[in-house]
């Protein structure tokens, strides 16, 4: 069984083979992997190096907590991964970015309007939550295509607030 695991733009090919054991990028590794009870607490001994972690499945990735740092890991079966790469090769991605609310709260201000040109990092929404004002910023350069909220509105987590049409995406 071959998997491709992606962490922070780094890719690892991990092979789990009944005969050959575990190989990372084709290098065999001595692995002892233990789950503590039914919890997400895991213990790994990798060539005797001890790594203690919490691992949880999310919608489209795995959260892995090691020594205070949270890693967002995408794990794909190698075949699925190749198919997806083939499909996306040469195609142009439809460039639409959506700014969503990271938590419930109240909209304090929306300093952009439809048609505005924004740069990556520009403030597009000010949201009050946990007694603080938080600035939501554009994730990319582009043009504001729609604004779904106004100041004073109560919003839920993951609610779509502002849409941005991106510059033409590069073929990957």
């Amino acid at each position, binding site marked *: 069984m071959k998997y491709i*695991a992606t962490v922070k733009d780094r890719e690892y090919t991990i092979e789990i083979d009944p*005969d050959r054991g575990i190989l990372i990028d084709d290098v065999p590794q001595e692995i002892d992997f233990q789950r503590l009870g039914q919890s*997400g*607490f895991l213990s790994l001994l990798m060539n005797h190096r001890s790594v203690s972690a919490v*691992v949880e499945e999310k919608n489209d990735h795995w959260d892995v907590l090691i020594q205070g740092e949270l890693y967002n890991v995408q794990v794909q079966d190698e075949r699925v991964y190749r198919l997806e790469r083939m499909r996306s090769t040469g195609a142009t991605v439809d460039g639409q970015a959506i700014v969503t609310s990271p938590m419930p709260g109240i909209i304090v201000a929306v300093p952009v309007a439809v048609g505005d040109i924004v740069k990556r990092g520009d403030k597009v929404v000010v949201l009050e*939550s946990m007694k603080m*004002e938080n600035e939501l910023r554009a994730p990319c350069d582009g043009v504001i295509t729609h604004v779904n909220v106004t100041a004073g509105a109560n919003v839920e987590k993951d609610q779509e607030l502002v849409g941005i049409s991106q510059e033409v995406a590069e073929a990957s």
Partner: protein
Amino acid sequence: MLREDGLLVKKFDKLLIANRGEIALRILRAAHELGISTVAVFSDADRNAPHVRYADEAYHIGPPAARDSYLVIEKLLDVAKRSGAEAIHPGYGFLAERAGFAQACADAGIVFVGPPARAIEIMGDKLMARATVTAAGVPVVPGTPIGQSDEEMTAAAIQMGFPVLVKAAAGGGGKGMRPVHRVEDLPDAFAAARRESKAAFGDDTVYLEKLITEARHIEIQLLADSHGNTIYLGERECSLQRRHQKLIEEAPSFVVDADLRRRMGEVAVAAARSVNYVNSGTIEFLLDRDKNFYFLEMNTRLQVEHPVTELVTGVDIVQEQLRIARGRRLRLRQEDIQIKGWAIECRINAEDPYNNYMPSTGTITAAHLPAGPGVRVDSGVYVGNEITPYYDSMISKLICYGETRGEAVLRMRRALEEYRIMGVKTNIPFHQHMMDSHRFLSGQFDTNFVEERFSMDDREIDRAMEAALLATLAAHEQSQRAAQIVAPGARDTSNWKWLSRWERLRR
């Protein structure tokens, strides 16, 4: 005993804690240790919280929003009456610095574990506070009187020179506070500070202060009994802030020597005496590069960061609060207070340090606390705890003690590595990065350090391969299990053997 200033002081055996989270638990523990029985209150969001489970009694007081529960004075007084509680500890935040609440307690014959209402009132009004302490000989930062128009304040700002600080008269904890470096940014700053202050305190009065640059935030912890004795328990270094929210506090401070400590302590005692202060309180000072210090404000309550002082002085501040409220004389004189060792506190917040410290909500799915020598955790979170936008994002405090500052820092690094919270993002990586920073290690920082000269971008993280492997093994485990459920007869468990095979090879 009802004092002339309206402060009620008497022995009590049952205490209501008008708060939630880690501080409610902290107060409960102190009360239990003094043999005082405890009454907790809880909103719908907190039925399963530790402060409810650890209290002797618990009463429901309404929906999650604080304005409908923890901030409703009538509900709290009603619970006190129904439960027979003779005293109320307000903790910090919520009603802790509402003079009206202290007065309402006194009027109902209930001991308020805090200062007289009048002291809260004076110190809660920044302008009145400045006038009062100035009269007592305490140095203050230059600023405008209250009640000036935007135009007058703008003129004053130009005269005193930028940068200036827009401050809410009713403010505290950094809320309603905005630094302004250019005259053209003043209108926006006035508006933002008013909005925040209105939302947080129901009052939108603002004023200006000169912004002291390269300043440190140093505060002095005080204890005052109802018999006129006031002592200081040394200083806390609280310069590491972001948007005026403290993130890391230490005791003692790297830059305060014995002589400066004594001078700041004596000025702090004078400031407290100027309002006939009783109970625990803190005088916040700005300390400039030349070791001049200016009164900023007085916090007329227990502070979040009180543990660092407890660890270096050996004094249990919350127990002292309860003893003082019971009318006892301070057992400690100034000469009994000695600073020994070093303590550091990291505030663990539900926020994403890699994404502009955006607050993070969710349900806590795992919580493993660090432990061992020199490590203290004051936490109010639990597995199953929903971190909501209703309350502030601080979910826990991690405090480490060492014989020296270096040892405290190294212990903090170790403890941060041990700490495991899942379900929300936390600022633990921020603290780890800070503990590795040369500027922090050498004590070279001021109140702007975090915002202006500290970045998470240069943090090196070297466990990506292990993370990739762990996620893959978990995913593989899951898919194998799923396959076995679907067709148990069709496959044997040999796919699993490699795991134990590697184990066996090594045995």
